[in-house]
């Protein structure tokens, strides 16, 4: 059977509920109805808060804090078809929580690696995210990343930027983390105008570029090594790489 759900975390938990209580036999989980003709039964799961909460309570009871975090983290790896593996992870955990550490099980090893990949992306973006100062002093960063790491970045910069309001805008996912005084939230962004930058912004950008150039040692020139650290993919919003 193929299951269809809306892609939200609550939706996924509702799906887990139905799989358990209606004993569904799942072959695939999708977020969108495929356009090709399928010769398999289809079932649409509707997001249901009560069901989701029930599953969540079960997870809280059976899984360690660290494993609960793993579940959330894997869910943020939204460009990978992670649902089946995650379902498998939850199944194993309900049956025998000790088994979850067994990395000789391919699904569990896959999950461990996927989580590592997510966390290493997060760590990279702690460094590679660039803010620009807007007219009113708000700091504004645009990002495009393989996985949804907006929640991580939001937390990280709340600790760093003190009282300065800031926005981290995930362009592809149309999401933004917004911090302003006491407000901190993730919002979906339908459309946005080109922002107006502060007067000083271009000055500091220029200074940063000269620093970046001056810090390189000519006799050790090694663009290949540079690229292995900062693949082109990451450079879109890093002003030092603008030509």
């Amino acid at each position, binding site marked *: 059977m193929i299951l269809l759900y809306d892609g939200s975390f609550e939706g996924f938990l509702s799906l887990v509920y139905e799989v358990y209580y209606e004993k569904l036999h799942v072959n695939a989980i999708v977020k969108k109805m495929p356009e090709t003709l399928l010769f398999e039964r289809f079932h649409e799961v509707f997001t249901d808060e009560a069901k989701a909460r029930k599953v969540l309570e079960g997870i809280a009871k059976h899984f360690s804090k660290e494993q609960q975090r793993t579940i959330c983290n894997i869910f943020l790896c939204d460009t990978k078809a992670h649902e089946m593996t995650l379902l498998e992870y939850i199944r194993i955990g309900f049956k025998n929580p000790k088994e979850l550490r067994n990395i000789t099980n391919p699904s569990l090893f896959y999950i461990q690696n996927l989580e590592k990949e997510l966390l290493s992306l997060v760590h990279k973006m702690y460094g590679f995210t660039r803010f620009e100062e807007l007219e009113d002093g708000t700091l504004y960063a645009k990002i495009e990343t393989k996985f949804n790491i907006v929640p991580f970045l939001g937390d990280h910069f709340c600790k760093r930027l*003190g009282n300065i309001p800031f926005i981290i805008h995930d362009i592809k996912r149309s999401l933004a983390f917004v911090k302003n005084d006491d407000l901190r939230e993730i919002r979906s962004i339908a459309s946005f105008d080109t922002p107006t930058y502060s007067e000083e912004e271009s000055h500091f950008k220029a200074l*940063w570029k000269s620093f970046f150039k001056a*810090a390189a040692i000519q006799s050790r020139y090694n663009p290949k*090594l540079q690229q292995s650290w900062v693949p082109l993919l990451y450079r879109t919003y890093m002003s030092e790489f603008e030509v």
Partner: protein
Amino acid sequence: MKLTTEDKLSILAGSAKYDVSCSSSGSENNYKTGELGCAHNSGICHSFTSDGRCISLLKILLSNVCVYDCAYCINRVSNDIVRTAFGPRELADLTINFYKRNYIEGLFLSSGIIKNEDHTMHLLLQTLRILRHEYRFNGYIHVKLIPGASKELIEEATLLAHRVSSNIELPSSKSLALLAPDKTKEKLLSPLKYARDISLQRSAKPISMSTQMIIGATGESDFEILKLSASLYQKALLKRVYYSAYIAVNNHKHLPVPELSKPPLLREHRLYQADWLLRFYGFSYDEILSENQNLDIQFDPKTFWALSNMHLFPIDVNHAPKEILVRIPGIGIRGALKILQARRFKQLNFEDLLTLKISLKKARYFIVAGKDFYRATSLYTEKIKLALIHQGSNIIQPSLFDMSIYTGEL
């Protein structure tokens, strides 16, 4: 001619770049609500320059004016170069503005000697005071201790900075006397010792400290260099020793000629690998090298050690403890941890190791895993050497070996 901020920044960052220390790691999370900046316990790289080195800190000199005449240094008094300086406030403002935009993790401040040692240290501290007290900046700060500066100033530096350092510069007193007549090993190390002692009086953990040695400007062997590093680590004086392949910038009768010399990058790489063995894998310097020996060019230090100690192999990956696992060529800390985790569930064979993404290219000659061992090459040093050379796994891709400063992992 009046220099713009941009010119000054280029000159003073350009003069600071030869200091390789870049790390901003190992600091406590020191977050305070409503204040700017917070250090992170694993270092964060904000960009990488075209030579592939990490930019983590605004690494800069307050001034490139210097009254000393160290032969290897671009800022020595006898060089005819443009001299300039930032004011403490100017530099503090620059730091804050770079930090806000997430260009940097913090500041790495050093300076040539302006007038005298105390005067210079004063100016450095003035910058730090503005940042810490006025701007309430909690981001990472690394400051150079000016050798010869008075004790109160050094103490204040340990209060304001996350890390302090003083560069040993050259691996022996003889070389120092030859090339940096104003400096002695004692003079360079004493601020570090003092900083350690004074910070230990305040808390159980001394302030983090590092140093740097220039490699290849003078004739010391790798053995001497590693021995020195090991002794500095042992006394818990330093967290990190950095090695910097000598880049010839000046003509001097005791130094390699600039036009003819290339920085010895491979040697620097091997030293970082050996240093890693000292710090993380429990090797002692005299296990890695014997008197006056240099590190092997063909094989990395761990493989070289294993080949010279074949009586300790093969190692059984299903039973060896962690300290032994990390001594297997080609298996690092991460590989060892995966093995430890996985073998609780089953006895591991070669295929299991491969599914765990542990490369056996080098390791297979040195291990047994269940019934598996590498049959094609018997356990004779020469045969393994040939096999390793043949497969080319010993040859480092020159484009990538600069990675070693950050990992050095083998």
